[in-house]
């Protein structure tokens, strides 16, 4: 359903803190005026590395710089001090994926778990959650998971989610800012063909949000969820937390691209921008060491010509990237070297 334009802009001004109001400024200029940075994975010199840049894409640098190890899927703690991520060792069917955590400057790197993937932070910045692999045997597919584990980075204590035995084939979890809910995709698990679920962080409640697609993530204020309804769209909807169970009220923003795939949406800390991975459909390039063959949006699959873009949220209910002018979004990376899985942060320093 289309939202009246006046209501849309009223809602935006009421619900979001827009940092820069001048319409004359380009998206890049608006991003440059923020204190934000992005961390993301990139395939560089035959190796997966984590890179950071300012929000406008300037000042890009290799954060990990480990030619003998592959690092992917970075997630910054809410306080901006630490980073959790996955690291792949070995190749082909001998690959082992592990979860690590380190300080934002790359120091104090700690191993968390082997045969585990897709970590994210809880709201308190002391604990991460991750998804153990379904079996020890390697498989690149994202839903190859069973259970859910919390890891306290201060104490090193691991604790299974109270409903861990039932949680099967989840992928891309994300926690609500109040720490009460996890939102995650499930594929072919727990009786669902495919769904986006709300999972109680400390209970056994599981509710389908009844929205199609995958890879949901909460807005920093917890009022909204952004997700990918399909290969060529990123959507934002408001969550009705008063409903029982909570549900997504309506889709009020849609970013479409008829040509390219758009994936891996993440919110800027002020909820004014979305970062998105964008590129053509492919299924990898096995000539590149440390990569695998599957859909190119999957972690560990080389995505040729994929770059990161940022889209401001105050442009109306629908943005068609295939027709959008350069002042409607900003391309963060330029090299097309499999830039994916971006995460925003405000530097703690």
């Amino acid at each position: 359903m289309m939202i009246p334009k006046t209501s849309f802009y009223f809602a935006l001004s009421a619900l979001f803190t827009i940092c820069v109001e001048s319409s004359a400024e380009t998206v890049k200029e608006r991003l440059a005026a923020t204190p934000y940075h992005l961390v993301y994975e990139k395939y560089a010199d035959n190796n997966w590395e984590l890179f950071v840049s300012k929000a406008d894409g300037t000042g890009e640098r290799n954060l990990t710089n480990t030619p003998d190890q592959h690092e992917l899927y970075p997630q910054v703690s809410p306080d901006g001090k630490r980073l959790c991520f996955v690291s792949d060792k070995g190749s082909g069917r001998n690959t082992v994926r592990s979860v690590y955590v380190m300080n934002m400057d790359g120091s104090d790197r700690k191993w968390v778990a082997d045969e585990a993937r897709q970590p994210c932070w809880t709201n308190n910045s002391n604990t991460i959650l991750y998804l153990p692999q379904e079996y020890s045997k390697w498989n690149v597919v994202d839903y190859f998971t069973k259970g859910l584990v919390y890891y306290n980075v201060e104490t090193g204590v691991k604790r299974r989610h109270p409903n861990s035995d039932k949680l099967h084939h989840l992928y891309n979890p994300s926690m609500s800012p109040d720490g009460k809910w996890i939102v995650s995709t499930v594929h072919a698990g727990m009786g669902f063909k495919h769904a986006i679920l709300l999972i109680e962080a400390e209970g056994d409640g599981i509710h389908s949000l009844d929205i199609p697609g995958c890879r949901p993530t909460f807005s920093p204020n917890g009022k909204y969820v952004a997700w990918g309804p399909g290969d060529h769209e990123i959507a934002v909807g408001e969550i009705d937390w008063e409903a029982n169970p909570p549900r997504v009220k309506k889709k009020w923003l849609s970013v479409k691209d008829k040509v390219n795939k758009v994936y891996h949406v993440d919110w800027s800390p002020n909820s004014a921008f979305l970062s998105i991975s964008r590129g053509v459909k492919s299924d990898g390039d096995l000539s590149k060491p440390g990569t695998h063959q599957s859909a190119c949006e999957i972690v560990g699959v080389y995505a040729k010509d994929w770059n990161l873009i940022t889209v401001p949220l105050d442009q109306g209910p629908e943005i068609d990237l295939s027709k959008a002018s350069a002042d409607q979004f900003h391309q963060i990376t330029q090299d097309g070297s499999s830039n994916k899985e971006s995460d925003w942060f405000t530097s703690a320093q």
Partner: protein
Amino acid sequence: MNHWQHIFVGLCGGMGLLALAGCGPSTSNEQTSGSTSASSGMMSFPVKTASGIEMIFLGGGTFTMGSDQESSDEGPAHKVTLSPFLIDQYEVTHEQFAKVQIPNPSHWQDDPRKPVEQLRWRDAKLYCNERSLLEGLTPCYDEAKEGWPCNYEANGYRLPSEAEWEFAARAGSKDRYPVGKRALNQSAWFGDNAGKRTHFVGTRRPNDWGIHDMYGNVSEWCQDAYEEEYYASSPEKNPRGPEDTAENNRRVMRGGSWKSSVDMCRVTFRQGQQTGDSDACFYTDFCGFRCVRSISEEDAKKLVSDTSSE
């Protein structure tokens, strides 16, 4: 009676029981072997593989593939000669998938005896390789190369060529419905009787060579790329489909499924299905498969005697 005469008598008895019972995957270790089909003159017998999977040995031969009376892609009808091979007696199930510890993308996982579905083409090939490794065989698919090319000379499992699939489905018959159009209800789970879901494998009557669910339940991936005009240029001996190019990402799917009409369950019906290999999630919940393995008659008989002596 010598060993093979014993086996032949056993097979006749076994097939008779199957025909009477009409359903149910065998759980017996009893092996029978050595039947020559009266209609086709071809040797066929059941075997059990090293990991306990029931397969049927088909001695190869010459048959007429396709039809001149159906859709344009099903013609021209043409002669095809195949080498011997083993084919799964049942579609690959959740139970078998779990055994090789790879992710199961299926929608209906409520019973381990149901066939896997929502499978991308590559998922099916990965299972073939894992099953080969589990049984100490050489995998057919090279996972280190783009597209995982198939080595037909390897002794491991692979997807059937389209010709192997149709040969097995016909079981020596020249009819549009080898099990009989009226008998389809007893031989297949399809749109008219499946209740919009998959069913336990082997719960419908097998075809004349003892193979279950060749029609309905889940549609089955073949190894061949799909091309509408392929039959016009298909080689006679062991055809393996048109050239596998990056531009053509459709593969042959055969047999119809739980959601298919009667018409789609005819033996020559061809479907060109997108592989789904570049999709993170593949929701097509009628795509399943079964495996084949190239083998000589002599080696197949060893499988029978190995299992019999256990």
